[in-house]
């Protein structure tokens, strides 16, 4: 049985998904992708994932935020680490110049801004996965 960590990407930009998937699969992760929030949530409920990579601007607007808040209400899903990857600063955050973007949409998350530097992506993914392992071990 494969022991590769299984990751889910929820992002509506297929070109971006292809790039991120290539980086993660190259590092030995098993990667699934969903291109809209509804399919993403269905996927998340259909099987366990070790980590979610989540876009913010999808569908009608900042649906990634709603997605994360929906996860926070689910006792099982709120334990899944989330890496938010967003181009929000360029698209919306110009309305709040000089103010930082923050994650904190679910109890365990991190935020990366597009465009993503591959090495930084792999470091963040590894850090979130090992923190999740430690939490599980401590809770067991």
């Amino acid at each position, binding site marked *: 049985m494969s022991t590769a960590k299984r990751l889910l990407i929820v992002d509506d930009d297929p070109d971006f998904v292809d790039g991120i998937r290539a980086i993660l699969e190259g590092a030995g992760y098993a990667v699934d992708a969903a291109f809209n929030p509804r399919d993403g949530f269905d996927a998340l409920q259909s099987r366990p994932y070790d980590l979610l990579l989540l876009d913010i601007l999808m569908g009608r607007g900042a649906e990634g935020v709603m997605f994360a808040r929906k996860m926070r209400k689910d006792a099982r899903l709120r334990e899944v680490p989330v890496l938010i990857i967003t181009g929000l600063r360029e698209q919306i955050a110009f309305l709040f110049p000089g*103010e930082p973007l923050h994650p904190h949409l679910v109890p365990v998350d991190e935020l990366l801004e597009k465009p993503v530097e591959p090495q930084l992506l792999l470091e963040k993914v590894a850090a979130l996965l090992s923190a999740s392992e430690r939490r599980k071990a401590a809770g067991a």
Partner: protein
Amino acid sequence: MARSLSFTGEIANLLYAAQPNPVQACIQCGTCSASCPVAGFMDHSPRQLIAMIRAGQREAVLRSNTFWTCASCYLCTVRCPAGIDIAYLMYGLKRYTIWRNRHAPGLIGPAFSRAFMRMIVRTGRSWEPALAPAYLGRRGWRGVIDEMRVAGALFLRGRLPLRPRWIRRRRALREMLRHIIPVGGPA
């Protein structure tokens, strides 16, 4: 789970919550184009644009001024025999091109959209005398005279305030927006 997504699928996904989906349910009857009051200013009629999306003509769709020309009157949506919200599709395409910086250069819409949003976040209200001047010269002197005439008529009827107005409790509006988008320190 699908590994990749066609352009048609991408646009359908952008409108995934719409029932029926504007892209898949179209029967190409042309009622939308015949009803559209600004179709004459569009590179492609709404019907043509939907056909282009379904044919996967990505670059031609993104270059089109059609969705930026849409006046959001919703007549196409009201008259569509397939019950498709075509105006919603136009909004979806605006978002798509803005989010990916893929809109045609030189369009008023994207820059105006940002200027408008900035004003709303700052004051909570739209104030035309600040928004309009940047676009006055685009149709030459005749355009300027037309606009001045409209502005004069609006002013005489008390519909064009000369001083900016803003809502009370603007800070509350900003806090509300910060709650919606993750910006400005920890939530």
